[in-house]
């Protein structure tokens, strides 16, 4: 059955998954933090800059997924074998799944960070770092995805 689908289509699915899942995670994450950030802004609009940084943090996973999809796309060719297609599909999985999950958790940390900004704006740097810690795992997943894409090619 896989033969009839063809390697290219499977690789396309891989790229799509990487972009879709991490994008889903990021959009939900950015949304969660956005709500918390809006709450902070109603009290004190001058904190916009600080909460904006927090809000954008869970957005990077979406960019990573996009990057992975782009790299897979760069390597696509019509005469790809099924094994190559499956390889790209699997290579996209780390950033797809980890990106999705880490964006959600990063969003929770960042949303809590918003309350730090609200109550103690001097410490907002630390709140940002807490949220950035989660991102490490998205970065590592992207790293593996990129290395795997290199191996398949």
């Amino acid at each position: 059955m896989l033969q009839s689908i063809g390697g290219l289509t499977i690789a396309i699915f891989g790229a799509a998954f990487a972009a879709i899942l991490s994008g889903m995670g990021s959009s939900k994450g950015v949304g969660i933090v956005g709500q918390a950030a809006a709450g902070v802004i109603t009290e004190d609009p001058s904190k916009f800059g600080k909460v904006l940084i927090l809000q954008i943090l869970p957005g990077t996973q979406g960019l990573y997924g996009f990057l992975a999809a782009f790299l897979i796309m760069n390597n696509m060719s019509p005469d790809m074998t099924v094994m190559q297609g499956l390889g790209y599909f699997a290579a996209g999985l780390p950033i797809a799944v980890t990106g999705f999950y880490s964006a959600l958790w990063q969003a929770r940390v960042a949303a809590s960070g918003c309350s730090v900004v609200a109550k103690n704006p001097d410490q907002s740097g630390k709140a940002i770092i807490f949220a950035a810690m989660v991102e490490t795992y998205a970065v590592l997943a992207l790293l593996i995805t990129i290395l795997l894409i290199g191996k398949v090619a």
Partner: protein
Amino acid sequence: MAILKMKRIEILAMLSDSKSIVDLVQQSQAVHVIDYTEESNNFYKFSTGAAVGQFDKFYNVTVSAREILNRYVPVKGGLIASFAPRPDLSVSDFHKKAQAADEILSKCYGINALYKEIQDCRVEIVRVETALEQMRPWENLDIPSSFKETASTAVFVGSMEGTLDREAILSKIAELGGDFDLDVKVTYSDKNLTCLVAICHKDDAKDVEQALRTIGYVAPSDPTKHEPKVRIARLEKEIEKCNEKIAENEEKIKTYAEFRDDIAFLEDYFVLRMDKYKALDKISMSNNIFVLRGYIPEPEVEPLQTKLEKLFDVAISVSDPDFENEDVPVALENGTIGRTMEPITEMYGTPTHDDVDPNTVMTWFYYLLFGFMLGDAGYGVIMLIVCLIVMFKYRLEPHKAKTVHYALLCSIGTIVWGALFNGWFGDLPMYIANGFNLEGVMNRTNLDFISANHLYWFLPLEHTTRFLLFAFFIGILHLGLGVAVSLYNKLRHKQILEALVQDFPNLLILAGVIPLINSQLGAGAFSENPPTKFIDDIITVASKPLYICLIAGFALVFVGPVILAIKDKKPFLKILGGFASGANDFYGAASGYIGDILSYARLLALGLCTGVIASVINQLAAMPGNPILFVIFAIFGHTINLGINLIGTYVHTNRLQYVEFFSKFYESGGLPFKPLNVKTKSFKFKEEI
């Protein structure tokens, strides 16, 4: 790059001079005033809480007045204008303006009152609109809705739920089977509500009312005396009146715009007074004299002392603080470039007196990492241009100069890395060379000048592994610098053996990891073509000594605790226990450094992201095949890309500094030096005082 030497200062003077002296200390901006409770009973405190509270209240009035004013008469401005210097103000002008404070304050109260009326009107409008909404269905009724009867008939005005017409209502009534005559007129009907007038003979009134109620008739809750139209007109007029009032008040508020500067001055004035009174609160005084205590950086002692002694009868004593038992604030002094890092360090925590001031040390790597992650020369050029415009347009004040210099250095780092990796708004030069023709770019018909002459180092997208390895090597250097600073700090405190067994082996390990990563992860990624081959050559030549370093490093980590235990002359069993802790350190060093180095993969992640998104933007912009549309779309897309990536880069550069770099040597947790100073927003004292 240094932590300034702190001195403790005590100023003793006549009570009658207290306010003038505090004024002078405040303007010198040099003394961190502390609250010091006197042991002797002859001293007491001057409680200023009430005065501070009063100023706070006035301050809030002025702030809200200015905000209201800004809402109705917006100030023109933008990113660049926000760096404009504040106007100078001499002390005599300050006093002149301060005398008019009451007058301006009353204007502020005026603005607030006008705004309060506007808000009241808005509430009123909402209320009236609700009432109006309820009256709308009755608009076509040509009798008052309180109309009850004529000489021989009874009239029921009311409403029912749902959409009904005359026949439907009559048939519902007929179903109930009452013995009466009734006529119904439907005046209004929508999907929720039907308004009707029912009329019958007076004798049947009771039965009819009963029947109507049974089928869901409700009399109006607030019947009108006149035709509903009259009330609707009246309500509409009320809204109009409120709107007029709002417009009128807005006009009135706008006339206050000319006082905006005075109000801004007043805001600062109250902050000054508040700070001064808060400082007065910390002063202890007897019947005739007062004592002000605080900390002062050593270079500031001389000027302040001469100034005070010239103007007043004072006794000043300056002494060395006791760092063990006192919370001595920390002031930093750095050069123009090192200073740009101070806000970043402050966000993490102020150094203690035992720390090395990290600002200058971290500077170069900070801009290097920042540039690597943003990594697009085109974006760097945009940032550079903005910074240069600001710098040439205005004479910058120190704290704003810090920000602008920071951005300037970031932009230079970005340009350097961007140029090395051929990122100019992604691959914009290719589009220009091919006349914005997408096909031409895809087939690489015309190479642009930079690509044709290979004016770059290598392309990250084509050599991902090499890019990654390079990121790791930068990370190793960065970590190594962190360990080196820790080593230096230990040597400075004469902990030579600790430095040798704790920090030195880490340096060895970091050096030894380089060939390991190169062979395991990269497998000669640098060896492919000439521009990067030198890295591979160096590593190959040095690999043997570096591997020896690695082994020696781990061996030292393992025996380190034992050596320390022997040095401290611990009992024999404790020395043996050192091996266990050595094994633990061994594991910690191995896993910790792997994690730290891997963390620098974010250099690759963010670096690639900027470039790839920029290329996609170009691609999308070229799709319509029209140069003008290309420019419009590209400007829009690149602006967004720059914004998002700037924030991401800022956060992750900070993270690498805080988590990977600072953790190697930096304690933090010092008390920041917060002198009693002039915290004005809208003007600046001239340097005559």
